């Protein structure tokens, strides 16, 4: 399974760090990529990740109203919704993309989000794009 987590540099990345420091367990299939803020996310990146064979994409930002850059996380949510819409149109499961909001001291929310995605992807099976390419 291939999962990607795009995190912001503040709460998102710090929460993944804290998950490590507290020795929490989550799937090792997830690769964390840091963005300055989730507002930097482009719809393109989500779709690219799916095209490259990601089974699930998580976008991890700060809690709403707590963004270090005022409202980058709210912008990101809009873009994630947009990406979901496009995925639905082209016949892919939109649930493969999820936006998570958390605080830097809530690593369990990150772990929970990864586990939820893991379970969802197991139920849906690998990305159809992955099957074709194999």
């Amino acid at each position: 399974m291939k999962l990607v987590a795009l995190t912001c540099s503040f709460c998102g990345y710090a929460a993944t760090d804290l998950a490590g420091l507290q020795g929490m367990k989550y799937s090792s299939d997830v690769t964390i990529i840091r963005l300055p803020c989730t507002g930097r996310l482009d719809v393109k990146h989500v779709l690219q990740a799916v095209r490259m064979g990601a089974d699930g994409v998580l976008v991890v930002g700060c809690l709403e109203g707590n963004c270090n850059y005022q409202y980058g996380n709210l912008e990101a949510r809009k873009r994630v919704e947009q990406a979901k819409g496009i995925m639905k149109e082209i016949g892919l499961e939109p649930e493969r993309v999820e936006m998570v909001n958390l605080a830097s001291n809530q690593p369990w929310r990150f772990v929970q989000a990864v586990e939820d995605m893991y379970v969802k992807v197991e139920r849906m099976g690998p990305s159809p794009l992955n099957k074709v390419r194999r």
Partner: protein
Amino acid sequence: MTVLTPPTHSSIEAPKGVAVFICGCRGKVSSKIRLETLLEEALKHPSVGSVEIMEECCCPEDMDRMRLSLSTDEVDRFLVAGCSWHSCRTKFEKLAESSGLDSSLVEVCNIKEHCALVHEPKQAEEKAMRLLKVSLARCDSLQPTPRLRPRTVNRTILIIGNGSTALTAAREAFALGHETMIVCPGDELFRTGEEGAIGLDDANVNKFLKDAEGKVTLSTSSVLRSLEGAPGEFRAVIDTPLGDTEINAGAVILAMDEEPAENPLASIFGDKAMTQEELERRLNSNSKMPGDVVMLAMDMKGESAFDPMSTHEAVHNALFLRTLNPRTRSTIITREVFALGQCEAGYRKSMEAGTRIVRSDGFPEVLEDRLVVKDPVLGEDVAIPYDLVVLDNVRTLPDLEELARAVKVPLTAEGRLKRPNAKLKPSESIRPGVFLCGTAGERGLGIGPTLEARSAAALASGMLRSDLTSGGEVAEVWQDLCSACLTCVRTCPYGAPSIGVEGKAEIKMDLCQGCGVCVGICPSKAIQMYSFRDDQITIQLSQALGGRR
């Protein structure tokens, strides 16, 4: 005509060589992951010049070893595979600078928190290999971020305020050796007995203004019209009774206070009522107090709606009252006592001095000489006699719309000056170089107006201590691609993009904070960030997902 396009992986200068340091973190990483396999993997990468395994990259001995390895001409950037970007970035950026490299050409690969500490050895190693590939790809594609001219800062501080907070900020700024100008919209800056004016009265205010003559200027009945420029070199236009004047300042402090208003509860109690402010004044002048004083820290509905922090004042004044008049019984009726920070100690002292606090979920029944409260714990009515009822100070927000427009700081729905995340930037506004204190700002840490004013002045002074540089991690517009659709202008939280003389968007580097929200939304893809370019994120995704394109 050649179209200039943003730099991509193919157009930026190829790296001279990457030095890779793999950190064992004193066994925390090396116990789970075989570092030698990572070393072999890194050596396979074409641009890697040298790979070294270190014991602990952040200890001084290993730092020296790294500096030695970086002193050759063959490397121009380095990657540290070790712990989190958060914990070691500053150290490695300094290391790069002291080794004569560009500090923006440093990449950190997190194989500790993201691998060794969470996964079993086999999975951890697999994941570490993948993360190393992602980071190597990113390291190759890094380019120096722009560093603009260092700006010579103007050390003058401009304070905009209407009350004691502005004065406190000015005193602090003066004490720190800054020339200060206070712009006050009203005709008088200081009213005696005002809240938060600890240690201030007419006499010592006049003395301060006299002592500071020439260093602190006060301009009353004046309004800020506009504020242009960047931290260190603001240009403000001020509308004074003598006409418009332009002022250069390094930092701006917004210190607007709420204005006093009458408490609507006063009419219920008639001449037996007074506000906390009046009580303080009476206590200061040593006037005699009656036997039963009841403090009602609530509004008509029994909520603490006038000011959530009003119980702070009640608790302190009750202590003050008991100390001066030990025969007086003081009772506070409220729904909930907020005793934050230093007030915790005051609360304890006040309780020890004999202040009674009665909880009430609603507004008490008012009789001729006593208040009847339904105690939620006892479930019974409790009658509290009173000779004097002390009510909350009620304040109204001044109209801040004009000021907000002039300084380009947005207002909250309530009409207060917006504050960024109070935990990260406690005394700052959204605009860099503009600091915020005073009761008309969005509620922050609740440390009180005096401390807030001092902290704002200290932060402003700290910012102006040395010359500032613009640049770093910012966004830039490639104007050939720009279609002037105004999307970036409308999206930026900081007002950095504007349409320039060419009719294309341009981003003011001094205002840009590097969030990238405009980069992600630009429909023409004309904006790029130096270290988070589209192609960089793409290549990272590609490496994370097994090298597909």
